[in-house]
């Protein structure tokens, strides 16, 4: 599965992933603390400029943001009619700033960098954190491996149903799908155990041994 990340050389691309996530979270909190339309307008403008300076193809942005923008327009109109147009302005600017900034971070940050940042944040928490960082990496690798497999199984079952002239009933798809997937979970579980899972994280790993 391809991520939404778009390669580039912009300033946002070059910042560290952990810093971007922290800054975005802080931005998300701060923006709910103010109700000043001028401050919010400045924040929204800054966020939109941030997104604009990534120079993404407009079609790409539109496909990703169409639903959110429609809902945003609906919320602004609903607020204007039911509460006041001042309130509508506050809500609209606030959501625009948040969504634009968050979308910019997603398009400018490699998923692997976010994973590395999360693991780096977990590791200093002692043996538990070390184990969590390891498990996180393994589980993410597994889910990325399973998505195409599940899609393949779904197509296989649908084709088998179509070949027999059976109508595409959800229940007739879900039950055999779940059973096949649970079987493959057993196989992968055994394969993991055969390769020494759970690992002994108290032993020094290859990466941490320094060769002089």
């Amino acid at each position, binding site marked *: *599965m391809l*991520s*939404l*990340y778009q390669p580039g050389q912009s300033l946002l691309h070059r910042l560290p992933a952990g810093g971007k996530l922290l800054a*975005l979270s802080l931005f998300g909190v701060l923006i709910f603390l103010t109700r000043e339309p001028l401050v919010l307008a400045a924040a929204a403008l800054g966020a939109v400029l941030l997104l604009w300076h990534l120079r993404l193809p407009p079609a790409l942005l539109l496909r*990703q943001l169409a*639903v*959110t923008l429609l*809902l*945003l327009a609906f*919320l602004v109109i*609903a*607020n204007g009619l*039911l*509460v006041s147009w001042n*309130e509508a302005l506050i*809500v609209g600017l606030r*959501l625009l700033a*948040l*969504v*634009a*900034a*968050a*979308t910019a*971070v*997603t*398009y400018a*940050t490699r*998923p692997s960098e976010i*994973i590395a940042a999360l693991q780096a944040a977990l590791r200093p928490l002692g043996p538990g954190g070390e184990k969590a960082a390891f*498990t996180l990496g393994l*589980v*993410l690798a*597994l*889910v990325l491996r*399973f*998505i195409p497999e*599940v*899609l393949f199984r*779904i197509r296989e079952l649908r084709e088998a149903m179509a070949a027999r002239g059976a109508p*595409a009933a*959800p*229940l007739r*798809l*879900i*039950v055999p*799908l*779940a*059973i096949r*997937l*649970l079987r493959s*979970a*057993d196989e*992968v*579980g*055994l394969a*993991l*155990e055969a390769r020494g*899972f*759970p690992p002994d994280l108290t032993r020094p790993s290859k990466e941490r041994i320094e060769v002089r």
Partner: protein
Amino acid sequence: MNARDLVLVPLFAALIVALGVMPPIPLGFLPVPITLQTLGVMLAGSMLGPWRGALAPALVVLLVVLGLPVLSGGRGGLGVLAGPTAGFLLGWIPGAFVTGLIARPILQRNSQGVGGFFGLLLAALIGGVAVVYAFGILWLSLVGGIALSTAALGSLAFLPGDLIKAALSAAATRAVHRVYPLVERP
């Protein structure tokens, strides 16, 4: 947690993703085809139990954070979590947990009778529908500045589809549990 438990969480996370990516199934009597993504959440809760069940949608949320287009319609990224509908996504985690909490004792006793089906249906309705909607509507109301009742009214359009998914979840969980019990007897 043994290796199989560890595998089940990403497996059901992948199921939730795949159910959103695959072409939607037309249900005949509903005008719009529904995506089955929330069905995956209900199945995770009722088949895996509360803890493993909640971890599966949590992993999907993590994939969204990483910027993978794992939600229905190919959406994903931090923009979704910053948007007004993020509550419906984050509500999946407690939703699957509550579904599992209610479904577990039913599966441990006897799920094959008529009572078993209705018990599992109730689990999916409370966890997969009520809890998810509660989070989604509350978030929409807080972030969107609209009244709770307005937010609830706007979410009603998705209710018929979700009721069908709850029934599907109950029937599928019962059928799968008969051949492949994941929730062990105490």
